[in-house]
């Protein structure tokens, strides 16, 4: 057991899975010689060679599209998109192909592929480097979406994602990459996809978040009898865990850093409003990014949900 940050935990997961299974290959921009712009794939080219760690041309659709072909042929590609803001050129390959090939071929073909990509506000990057566009991929049957909130869960979830028989988008918060260190076991362990995690039990209010917002949430609830849920897998998401908690607390707050309108937290609210409404004492509040283009670094702290904004929402729902 070693203490490590999320970059190292993810690197370790990749290394161990590549050792275990020679069908696991990596491809993307700068993933090889450079070890990735965040160093997540550092050392893998040296250890596994060019045939398994492929620096590709600068073309996201090409990366995902060829990864689909590899997956269909029997490999387990782990593709990297350098930043989530640059995933859109690959949207067609993800939505119209990766998500649908199992269905289109009635199960004859499948796409056991992972797309890793850094996301989120908080490290003072240029435009397009801080987006959280998970909602798009959660509205696409056939795709799974996973977001770890700490090194331990990052490793366990990534191993599950690599072994999953379906395509998984794996989102890595740039803010978390080097923020937290945690004990992470060497060797195999998995954290199951599709299951949320109760980070802290509580009785008065349920606060649901994921990825980098979880850390903010934990700070925000100090002194409140709150149940905190780390969703971990957004698609398919763990309705049951949410409903059970809301049935107990009668109050819910959802936190996400994407623009408010149409963010994935809307689905969570809507699900509660549909299936657990009768247990609610008051409104379901959302604490989110603004309905604006994500600003450049000078204003990014204003954009991102803050501990104060989360706390304010909790206090508001506690009034009911």
């Amino acid at each position, binding site marked *: 057991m070693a203490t490590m940050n999320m970059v190292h935990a993810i690197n370790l997961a990749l290394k161990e899975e590549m050792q275990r299974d020679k069908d696991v290959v990596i491809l993307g921009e700068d993933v090889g010689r450079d070890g990735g712009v965040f160093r997540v794939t550092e050392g893998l080219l040296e250890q596994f060679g060019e045939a398994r760690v492929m620096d590709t041309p600068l073309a996201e659709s090409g990366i995902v599209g*060829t990864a689909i*072909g590899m997956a269909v042929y029997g490999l387990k590609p782990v593709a990297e998109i350098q930043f989530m803001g640059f995933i859109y050129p690959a949207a067609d390959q993800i939505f119209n192909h990766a998500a649908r090939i199992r269905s289109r071929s009635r199960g004859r*073909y499948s796409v056991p592929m992972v797309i890793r990509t850094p996301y989120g506000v908080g490290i003072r990057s240029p435009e397009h480097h801080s987006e959280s566009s998970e909602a798009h991929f959660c509205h696409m049957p056939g795709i799974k979406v996973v977001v770890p909130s700490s090194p331990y869960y990052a490793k366990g979830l990534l191993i599950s994602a690599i072994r999953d028989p379906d395509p998984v988008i794996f989102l890595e918060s740039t803010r978390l990459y080097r923020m937290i260190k945690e004990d992470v076991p060497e060797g195999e362990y998995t954290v199951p996809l599709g299951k949320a995690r109760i980070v802290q039990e509580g009785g008065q209010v349920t606060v649901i978040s994921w990825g980098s917002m979880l850390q903010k949430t934990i700070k925000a609830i100090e002194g409140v009898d709150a149940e905190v849920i780390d969703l971990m897998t957004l698609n398919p998401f763990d309705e049951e865990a949410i409903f059970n908690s809301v049935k107990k607390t009668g109050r819910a707050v959802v936190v996400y850093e994407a623009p408010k309108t149409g963010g994935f937290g809307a689905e969570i609210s809507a699900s509660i409003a549909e299936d657990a409404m009768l247990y609610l004492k008051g409104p379901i509040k959302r604490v989110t990014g603004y309905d604006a283009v994500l600003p450049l670094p000078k204003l990014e702290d204003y954009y991102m949900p803050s501990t104060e904004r989360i706390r304010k929402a909790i206090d508001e729902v506690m009034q009911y």
Partner: protein
Amino acid sequence: MPETTIESCEVKRLEILSENGDADESLAPKFTDSQIRELYETLVRMRTFDGRALNLQREGRIGTYASILGQEAAQLGTAYALEKRDWIFPSFRENGVFVARGYEMYMILQYWGGDERGIKVPEDINMFPISIPVGTHMLHAVGAAMAAKYKEDKTVTLTYFGDGGTSEGDFHEAMNFAGVFQAPVVFICENNQWAISVPRARQTAAMTIAQKAFAYGFEGIQVDGNDIFAVYKATKSAVDKARSGGGPTLIECHTYRMSDHTTADDASRYRTKEEVEAWKEKDPILRLKRYMEKKGLWADSYGKQVDEDAKALVDEAVKKAEAVEKPKPQDMLVYTYKELTPRQKKQMGDF
């Protein structure tokens, strides 16, 4: 050193079998008589199938259908150059390729009849399902070829697309990845002169599609796509090259879409009868028949028999397709993921 030439490229066109059935024997592939017959019989089967599918659509017995009329040689000549272990990534117009590869014809009809079970490719055919989004599936062929190379499998992948498909960004990325990774893949462009109503000249200002390969550092060649000998020969040499580690090739099959774009289209809105007429004389099947006549491989009784056999096979396929039970509504959910999600399980209860 002022202005110097640092690179150059020549684009070739290959023709072997002329419209009146004469072949340049120095170039012609060394087919046996029975192979020639096999080619002819398969071409007829493809065309018979296609004609029937068009009829079925008109009668409302299947949905929208994309005809291959005129493109049979381009489809068969390419597919015939592959081994069974090789992989095909088709677009939506390769019905003839499916037939040529021994795919059950009734399943093709089932698919166009609106039932995805028709495109569940049997385990023993290395072929990918029809891909409707134009220009996108070539990337899968390249990725599969990269995987084959990594696994040292010595299989080749081959992918089909239209002249229109060359305009999509994914075409570019597929060609570029293929070049960079020296993937064992063969790109077949069925340049049938039209992308629905848009003529080839408006699709790109390049004189040929073949020359586009130069942009990616590998070879491109144009062939007379209605000349099955030329199509086969170019494909076979590209496949051999790919298999032996020589990397990708682009083959432009210069042909013509004799039908409407699909049964939902009316080509008379945008092209002249004269243009279509002019291509009739270039018909790929007629041409092979003339060759067989000249070679003494033809008898009218043989021709009749081939037609009848094809018709019988297609009749049977239609019967079989129409006897298939309707899919169950639950089917729409079960292949989304390997396992149903909790929410999907609830949704199954609706039916």
